[in-house]
């Protein structure tokens, strides 16, 4: 208890030290894994059973958006207050986001192999996602290029805030303006509009929430490790 209050910068941060939501997350993820593979899905041409990938591919992006948003929130907080802890949260959230980015790309590529024929078929959505990935890799490179701690925290926070809207434009806006094979883009119906029936919603929405919290959990564990290292170096 004492140790927790000592480590928490604010009351809200207590959340990451509690375990009830972690248990819930694991239970819901196990549920989506089993239900996602066993429950019935609508029969669609071309897509067939690969529609189940929706349960595993889209939640990765949801988790990524969640942790990237948290990262930007704490970057803004860092710029306003200058507290080192906020920078640690921002960087670990960005790292976790990159991890989910890779998972999202891989699950998407596997699906594309079975429906579009190629792992990488020069689709605008894939290309945009790859560019956005470079954007966040640049963030890590930028961090490593500066030695001075406070300067590094400040400049990477600024770049993080700058990169976030660009990432949104890349992934959410640009592919919608061109012909894309991706569901929901370029005039293709999203599964949500026409084909997603209530059976799928029962798995998909819990998966969104559960994987987002999974992202927060991973980021918080990494943040706590960083925090311990930080305290160690300080003394």
């Amino acid at each position: 208890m004492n140790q927790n209050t000592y480590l928490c910068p604010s009351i809200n941060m207590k959340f990451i030290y509690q375990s009830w939501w972690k248990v819930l997350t694991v239970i819901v993820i196990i549920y989506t894994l089993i239900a996602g593979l066993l429950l019935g899905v609508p029969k669609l041409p071309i897509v067939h059973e690969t529609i189940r990938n929706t349960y595993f591919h889209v939640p990765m992006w949801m988790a990524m958006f969640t942790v990237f948003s948290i990262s930007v929130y704490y970057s803004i907080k860092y710029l306003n207050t200058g507290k080192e802890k906020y920078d640690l949260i921002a960087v670990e959230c960005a790292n976790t986001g990159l991890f989910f980015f890779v998972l999202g790309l891989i699950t998407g590529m596997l699906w594309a192999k079975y429906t579009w024929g190629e792992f990488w078929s020069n689709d605008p959505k894939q290309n945009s996602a790859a560019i956005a990935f470079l954007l966040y890799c640049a963030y890590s490179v930028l961090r490593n290029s500066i030695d001075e701690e406070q300067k590094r925290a400040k400049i990477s926070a600024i770049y993080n805030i700058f990169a976030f809207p660009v990432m949104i434009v890349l992934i959410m806006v640009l592919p919608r303006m061109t012909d894309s094979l991706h569901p929901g883009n370029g005039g293709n119906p999203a599964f949500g509009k026409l084909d997603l029936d209530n059976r799928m919603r029962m798995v998909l929405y819990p998966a969104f929430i559960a994987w987002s919290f999974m992202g927060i959990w991973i980021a918080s564990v990494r943040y706590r490790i960083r925090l311990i290292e930080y305290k160690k170096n300080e003394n």
Partner: protein
Amino acid sequence: MNQIITFDAMKLVNETWHLLKKEILLEWRSKYAFNGVLLYVVSTVFICYISFNLTPGFSGSNGYKVVWNVLFWIIMLFASVNAIAKSFMQESKSRLLYYYSIASPQAIILSKTIYNVLLMALLSILALLVYMVFFTNTLGDPLFYFLTVLLGSLSFSTVFTMISAIASKAGNNGTLMAILSFPVIIPVILVLIRLSKNAMDGIDRSLSLGNIGVLCAINAIVITTALLLFPFLWRD
């Protein structure tokens, strides 16, 4: 309250105007950036001209128009990185400190951005003329192509000015400038190439309006974030 806001806005405009005049005056005295980048563009165009003419019959081939368009934008991309990367790096630390004591950070980034837009607009038009002398091509909609080039120089300037401000704080190296700016500039250049291809083929203008909207939106986002973030960036 309203009076204070208008007073602040007036002050910002006034400071920006003076800093912009200073930038233009400095450039006019030395003409270093202008001549340097112009020479860079002309030599690149000439190298491309010689290299492509090593293959006889290139200018009559199928892909000529596509290559023409893409090559122009790639030349412009690298020319503008080189031109704009200097905008913060050439300032000495003490001079920057002096600016910050007399002007607001927003005025500084705004004046730099506007100056770069003007410089790049002038350079792009000149570059396009030089390019068209060497690589002959008929433009379906020349006016629209020029407009695209101007929009391109505007977008390059806004993005690269902000990135060069970040890169100059992080150790002044060119690699960082490229790494940081290219992911941001790729969507811009994709839209530009699509837009200019439409103009080159003389496709109906109303079909390109969506792309122009995207470019303007990207510029608006970049300028807003730059104005919001630069005050945090310049303090050391």
